[in-house]
């Protein structure tokens, strides 16, 4: 069974192809086909996972090749897939959460006339994402890498009639492409130095090249990861991506695709192990994004954007963990998985809220939804507890481990992570309070209601996962499981006993919760957001997404726009001007030469005689000379 990796990808891909080419008659049941494809992939993945469980630790990696993809000159790439401990977890996450979201979307998109297309894109995404995590070769990974980018583009811009959605989709794709630039260059570097882009070979032989090359390779991979995972400095697309339908935000922009960067770093762990510099950059990127995302999450009133900020922040945690080296890889993946559950859960919950609130996303117009939609409230609440790291929930285990490891690595990094945890507690509590507690601030004609069971069932499942996924950490199971893929973790002792650290974290979290309650629980938030001029700089900057767009505009977009205009002008006036100009000059010269052509035979005769005279003079001159 383990050599069926390709089938995992092929099933949803076939589903996507079928739905995209089948005509309108499949509108009625297209979503079912898609969901079935995703579920089939999940079932297959689960069987393969169980089979992998049954193997010895050293034997838990199966690589299958479908044959040659490209063989030209000295370049050779096989369509090869690796099913190992790391990818198996991802397969389960992607297909599992993916299937739940498929189910959820059946209800969420019920009234959309292009629902079949939506499901086709979802299937396409699942296929591409599986290709990404199963790839045994960086180029095959790149295929999935750009494939998820395409799916993300299509899904963010799914409501294309909204100009903002179309623009957001384009922005996401273009910024992702900037990241892909790094990815592409990384693959070229692999080829130039190792003669192959096979992930296994590169990781195996990284010790044979100089540290410069390893650092360069690591930084290029990080560059690619930043684009896909919305890490600083390529973070600007993620908040705009919330223009897409909410299930998309849950699946792609919270649970799976945006974590691909973390996957890439962990997958290329030997490269990063070989270069402390590159790892330092990973930590820096993770830390910056962690804090920036949290900051943004505190200030947004749009529930989805606030969640998106939170996503950035949580991925920052994972990056940070991945940057810590062997000690952190397993925790990065662990947090990635738990985050996949609780964040998907919360996004879907937000979707459920929006569903009941006529697609309003402004939390200032929510309030007191606790009773109106109880299932949503409870499931969302479990997600909330998980994300702030309430003891016993999955988030508690995963985040705690990261903070411990960070403290063990460097005190300041650890403190940064700790502050992040506090801020997370603050903004999540704020979200909770503004949405479900307090007084009604609904608009008229809004009648909140609980979503249909097709939507709430996935919520319940995900809530359960959020609650209990922590069991993976029991007895360091996850670390041992991942050991074949990420190498053996050497634990440094943290500066303080673990129990003390845990208590400190809990204290910080509690402080965050308390602050939020003081600000939003004890007093009612205003139904209208205060104007920018009335709020502090911190809020203004957060609302402006820390001026990321302004900086991009000033540094890239505007210069390129001006350059483009100048080049268009120059192309017409200068380069083409030279061409047409030379034609004009020739025209002018012939115009001048035309003037002596009076048409009078006698003038011509005079010229002939004059010419003869000149020839004669010339001959004479030559003879005499």
């Amino acid at each position, binding site marked *: 069974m383990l050599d069926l990796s390709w089938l995992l990808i092929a099933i949803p891909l076939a589903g996507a192809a079928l739905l995209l080419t089948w005509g309108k008659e499949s509108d009625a049941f297209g979503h079912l086909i898609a969901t079935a494809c995703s579920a089939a992939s999940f079932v297959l993945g689960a069987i393969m996972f169980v089979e992998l469980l049954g193997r010895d630790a050293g034997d838990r990696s199966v690589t299958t090749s479908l044959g040659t993809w*490209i063989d030209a*000159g000295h370049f050779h790439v096989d369509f090869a897939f690796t099913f190992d401990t790391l990818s198996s977890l991802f397969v389960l996450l992607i297909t599992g959460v993916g299937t739940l979201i498929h189910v959820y979307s059946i209800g969420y998109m019920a009234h959309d006339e292009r629902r079949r297309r939506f499901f086709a894109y979802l299937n396409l995404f699942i296929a591409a994402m599986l290709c990404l995590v199963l790839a045994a070769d960086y*180029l095959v990974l790149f295929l999935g890498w750009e494939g998820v980018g395409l799916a993300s583009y299509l899904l963010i811009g799914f409501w294309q*009639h909204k100009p903002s959605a179309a623009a957001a989709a384009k922005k996401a794709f273009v910024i992702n492409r900037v990241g892909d630039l790094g990815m592409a260059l990384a693959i070229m570097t692999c*080829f130039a*130095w190792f003669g192959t882009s096979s992930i296994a070979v590169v990781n195996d032989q990284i010790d044979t090249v100089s540290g410069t090359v390893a650092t360069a390779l690591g930084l290029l991979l990080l560059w690619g990861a930043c684009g896909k995972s919305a890490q600083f400095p390529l973070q600007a697309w993620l908040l705009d991506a919330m223009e897409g339908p909410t299930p998309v935000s849950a699946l792609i922009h919270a649970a799976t695709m945006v974590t691909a960067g973390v996957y890439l770093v962990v997958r290329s762990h030997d490269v990063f192990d070989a270069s402390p510099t590159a790892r330092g950059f990973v930590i820096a990127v993770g830390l910056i994004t962690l804090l920036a995302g949290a900051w943004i999450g505190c200030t947004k009133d749009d529930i989805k954007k606030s969640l998106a900020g939170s996503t950035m922040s949580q991925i920052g945690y994972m990056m940070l963990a991945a940057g810590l080296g062997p000690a952190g890889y397993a925790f990065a993946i662990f947090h990635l998985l738990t985050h996949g559950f609780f964040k998907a859960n919360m996004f879907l919950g937000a979707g459920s809220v929006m569903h009941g609130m006529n697609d309003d996303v402004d939390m200032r117009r929510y309030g007191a939804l606790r009773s109106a939609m109880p299932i949503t409230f409870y499931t969302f609440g479990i997600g909330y507890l998980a994300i702030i790291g309430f003891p016993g929930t999955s988030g508690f285990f995963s985040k705690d481990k990261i903070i411990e490891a960070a403290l063990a690595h460097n005190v300041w990094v650890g403190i940064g992570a700790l502050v992040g945890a506090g801020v997370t507690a603050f903004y999540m509590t704020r979200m909770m309070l503004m949405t479900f507690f307090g007084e009604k601030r609904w608009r008229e004609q809004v009648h909140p209601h609980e979503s249909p069971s097709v939507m709430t069932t996935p919520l319940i499942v995900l809530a359960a996962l959020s609650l209990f996924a922590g069991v993976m950490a029991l007895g360091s199971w996850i670390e041992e499981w991942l050991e074949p893929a990420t190498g053996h973790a050497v634990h440094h002792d943290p500066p303080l006993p673990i129990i003390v650290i845990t208590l400190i974290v809990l204290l910080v979290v509690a402080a965050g919760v308390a602050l939020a309650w003081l600000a939003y629980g004890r007093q009612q938030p205003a139904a209208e957001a205060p104007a920018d001029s009335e709020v502090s700089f911190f809020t203004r900057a957060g609302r402006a997404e820390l001026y990321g767009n302004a900086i991009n505009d000033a540094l890239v977009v505007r210069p390129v726009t001006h350059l483009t205009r100048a*080049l268009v002008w120059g192309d017409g006036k200068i380069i083409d001007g030279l*061409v047409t100009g030379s034609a004009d000059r020739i025209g002018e010269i012939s115009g001048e030469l035309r003037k002596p052509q009076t048409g009078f035979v006698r003038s011509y005769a005079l010229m002939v005689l004059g010419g003869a005279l000149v020839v004669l003079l010339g001959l004479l001159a030559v003879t005499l000379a």
Partner: protein
Amino acid sequence: MMLSLLIAVPLLGALVVALLPRSEDGRTARYVAVGVSILTLVMSLLLLREFDLEVGGYQLTEQHEWIGAFGVHWALGVNGIGLTMIFLTTVLTPIVLAASWNDKADDPGRTNAYFAWLLALEALAIGVFAATDVFVFYVLFEATLIPLYFLIGGHGTGRRSYAAVKFLIYNLLGGLLMLASIVGLYVLSTQQGGPSFLRADLAGLDMSATTERLLFLGFFIAFAIKAPMWPLHTWLPDAAASATPGTNVMMVSVIDKLGTFGMIIWCLELFPSASEWAAPVVLVLAVVSILYGALLAIGQADLRRLVAMTSVSHFGFIILGVFAFTSTSMAGSVLYMFNHGLTTALLFLVVGMMIARRGSGLIADYGGVQKVAPVLSGVLLLAGLASLSLPGLAPFVSEFLVLVGTFSRSIPLAAAATVGMVLAAVYILLMFQRTMTGPLNERTSTFRDLSPREVGALAPAIVLIIGLGFVPQPLLSVIDPAVDPVIATVGEGDPPQRAPLDLTQQTEGDHE
């Protein structure tokens, strides 16, 4: 005889179509033309049976004396590169003809001429790709200008006569430079044992470095104009904006390939050391083409001009791959020629269908088309994604091969060229966003979606683009054996792999 026959069939077809009685709707001419093009396609597939993939070098050769006094031979033969290009031509022509079904519907009197010129163009293009005598090559190379001139000037729209004259003079200028070089080769070959224009004879000529460089420049400039390479590209947007979609496809997808094809087959093989001498400059110009074409594509207001500028960018990649002198990049370039042909054909045809519906080529005149014409917009998106080299679609494989090969030769150039990938995303998605998404434009609300005939005409291209994205090997196995001999003639061959522990090479980062 196979190759001569392959040229003769479309040429005779063109003659027949031209001489057919003019019917009310020009239906007969269309059927005959499509039939002939499909026959040609089948014949070109039969070539494969005769062609031995294991053996490199020229096959299916034939040689007859033509003008004995000058040593001119009617000599034909193909290697893997030529065969690939012939495939491209024979595959695209039926697609073009089928997609151009309704062209000239308002002018039935000239349908015959239109389709006849297109077929003639196919025949001439096949001839150029198959010629192994430089004289024959030159004659056919220049002869392609004639059908194109009439197709642009006679059957185009807008400022068509301006565009046609500009196209003609610009390309003629290049052709004349090449003629000068050919005369030079003739003189040299006469001095060294009798006049001959055969490739095999010319490749063995002794010449001084200066002579070789001058002769090389004559050829290269002609090819660079044809390709078109920055800064010799300005004829293309004007021609593309005035020509019909079918003409554009034949011009950009097939005829412009003569330029890059010529660079590989003639420049590199006849003037290896001059090619090496020129390579640094050419490589820089190629990268400039990539970035410049992409930036200009972003700034275009007209769809056809946009597609034309994207081609300038893509031709930059092809030239980059050729002059990087690695077998990987050159195989990539040849594959790129094929893939770019398909992609640009699809783009031009879809854009042409949009323009036929809307009556305007301006991007600003569109908006929200996706809502009324989802299939059309889907095909446009697919073509666009292919154009921006999305992995999984054919152009990605070739573009990546070019970049990988170039990277092993020069890291900065490859890195700069890679930026073109980002710009490609910008120009394609910006165009898609402006035309297809957003609120429905009043004038576009009556858009018809693609008809079954149109889908049928485009389907082969779509299938090939997706299929070759995942399974490029059938073509690469044709191309690869042909590339190695070319690389072997130029320079030191492939750069060695950067030995993992060789620190000096790593820090230099560049082998040149």
